[in-house]
């Protein structure tokens, strides 16, 4: 009798719901945790050898240039996205969603197609390159480095626009009015009011674009013209390359990638509170 009635009280009911976690837990255990563990195990299959190799030239410079590329692209992305987010937030409320849609719609399209579209535009004999060439910007966008940066920015911009929009939307406009009242000009308002307010969104957004950029393989492969070697392309060729694949070494490179990404995410969680993991439950 007692056991039966307790089943009906809501408190014990909510406790019992946790059995629901079993199915997803089993799934994620099998198809996420074990595979990730395998990357680590494979990378360490002959001690630290593969990791040591990954951290020496020439691979150390590949890692370094990948980080530089991802950081540069993230910052460039911020420069493009911040004014866009600001523009959307400063529209009247009923026009915000449509404007947001304007900037996000292209990202609904398959990302390979998006990169391919730039490939079509950027090829050396294409109209864009020729146009830029006649303007005196020979090779400005078609050089492999800048093409990859452009492709990365193009691919991951929504991950920055959305968190920026989310924080900027919560800006208390009276703060700007107060700043103006106290004599701040537009730049001073932006620097002293808007940027500090948006900092968590900026950091979260930067991490959200930096992380996938770090692991990117398709963009450097399609737009780099075979000239750009990144962590992503290295990992891919260690596993699937036609010349001398080396799985344990590839796994070690993936381990390095996971460490860099983990560090970035930790920073993001710490400073971009509430924007990476949804709202933290109190």
């Amino acid at each position, binding site marked *: *009798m*007692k056991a039966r*009635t*307790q089943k*009906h*009280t*809501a*408190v014990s009911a909510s406790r019992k719901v946790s059995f629901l976690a079993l199915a997803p837990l089993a799934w994620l255990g099998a198809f996420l945790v074990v595979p990730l563990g395998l990357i680590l195990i494979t990378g360490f299959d002959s001690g630290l050898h593969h990791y040591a190799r990954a951290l020496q030239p020439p691979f150390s410079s590949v890692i370094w240039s990948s980080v530089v590329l991802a950081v540069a692209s993230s910052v460039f992305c911020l420069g493009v996205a911040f004014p866009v987010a600001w523009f959307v937030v400063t529209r009247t409320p009923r026009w915000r969603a449509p404007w947001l849609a304007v900037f996000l719609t292209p990202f609904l399209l398959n990302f390979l197609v998006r990169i391919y579209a730039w490939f079509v535009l950027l090829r050396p004999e294409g109209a864009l390159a020729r146009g830029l060439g006649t303007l005196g910007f020979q090779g400005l966008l078609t050089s492999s480095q800048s093409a990859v940066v452009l492709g990365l920015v193009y691919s991951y911009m929504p991950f920055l626009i959305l968190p920026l929009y989310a924080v900027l939307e919560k800006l208390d406009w009276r703060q700007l009015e107060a700043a103006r009242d106290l004599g701040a000009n537009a730049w001073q308002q932006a620097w002293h009011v808007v940027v500090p307010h948006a900092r968590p969104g900026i950091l979260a957004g930067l991490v959200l674009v930096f992380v996938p950029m770090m692991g990117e393989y398709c963009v450097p492969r399609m737009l780099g013209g075979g000239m750009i070697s990144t962590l992503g392309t290295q990992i891919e060729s260690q596993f699937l390359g036609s010349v001398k694949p080396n799985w344990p070494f590839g796994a070690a490179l993936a381990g390095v990638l996971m460490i860099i990404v983990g560090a970035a995410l930790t920073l993001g969680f710490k400073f971009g509170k509430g924007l990476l993991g949804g709202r933290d439950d109190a």
Partner: protein
Amino acid sequence: MSTGTLGAPPLLRVCGLRKRFGAQEVLKGVDLEVAQGEFFSLLGASGCGKTTLLRILAGFETADEGTLEIGGVNATHTPVQERDLNLVFQNYALFPHMTVYENVAFGLKVRKKKSITRQELNTRVENMLELTRMSPFARRYPGQLSGGQQQRVALARALAPHPSLLLLDEPMGALDAGLRQEMQRELRALQRRLGLTFIYVTHDQDEALALSDRIALLHEGALLQVGTPEDIYARPASRAVAAFFPEGNVLMATVRAPVPGQPHVVRAHCSGLGVEVEATVAPSGAPNAPQSQNTLHLLVRPERLHILCKEESRQSESADARVESVSYLGRERRYVVRLANGQQVVVSQNGGAPIAPGEAVSVSFLDARLHALPAGQL
């Protein structure tokens, strides 16, 4: 007005209820009886255990010890959905995806064993909406209603299954002051009309006084006093009860002599006012009246004191004092007055010419007999 203990067996009887959350004992053995048709309030500050008590009554929590009887039947282990009572939640907990009508009908639809026809259901729901004056809003969703309207829907929803007992968990908490008074009147009228038993949880002492037939004052998991609003307010059983209503003046008095024929009444001399008064002692019915020379603590509410300007005073039974400050509260003026012996008392007075701070006044009691707080308690 029923006092709950006489006549018919009580509708609700709670015996020795205890509840502990970890190391904290939230209910320390609560005994209660509520009579059929009573408006009964559980009053207490937040954290006193009143919400836990209510949740045990509703069946959301189980008590560690003690029993619970509803209508003479042991309901200690009755599942929530089979208890013959309903709850009006603090923030109403209306179902936002259902219309007002569907919300009210919910309790009737899910109780399949009391199967009622579609037509009965419609009539019942419509009656409830009529009763709470929500008929025009039947097709609206809770999100489209004002706070007061939402409260009415919550009430209608809880009343629709015809429970014999209605629990209300601070239902006015989310309403602003003006609306709150209106809803209080409505609620009281509704309860009278239906003859239903209400158990009303609140931390608002004025609300409890205004609405209740009886009040149970809960403090740190134990009942301090159960009684009518007057009992609680004017004849508190302890200092703690008295302190629950702010601005009670406590004046010292010395017992002079018992009053013949009245075992719990003594004559005493109040040193602060320098007058002799009658005082009731041991309201709980303790047999021994205080001895001569014992000190009494007399409780005098601000509105039971009277002040007059010195010149106008002709009364002999009054004491000299000086006004220290005045605040005008609309309906009344509240004076802080310093007595000759240095004690400060609060006097509230409606009407009469205002008296300026610094003026000399005379203070007197309005009541012939005062209430003495039990000795030894603080």
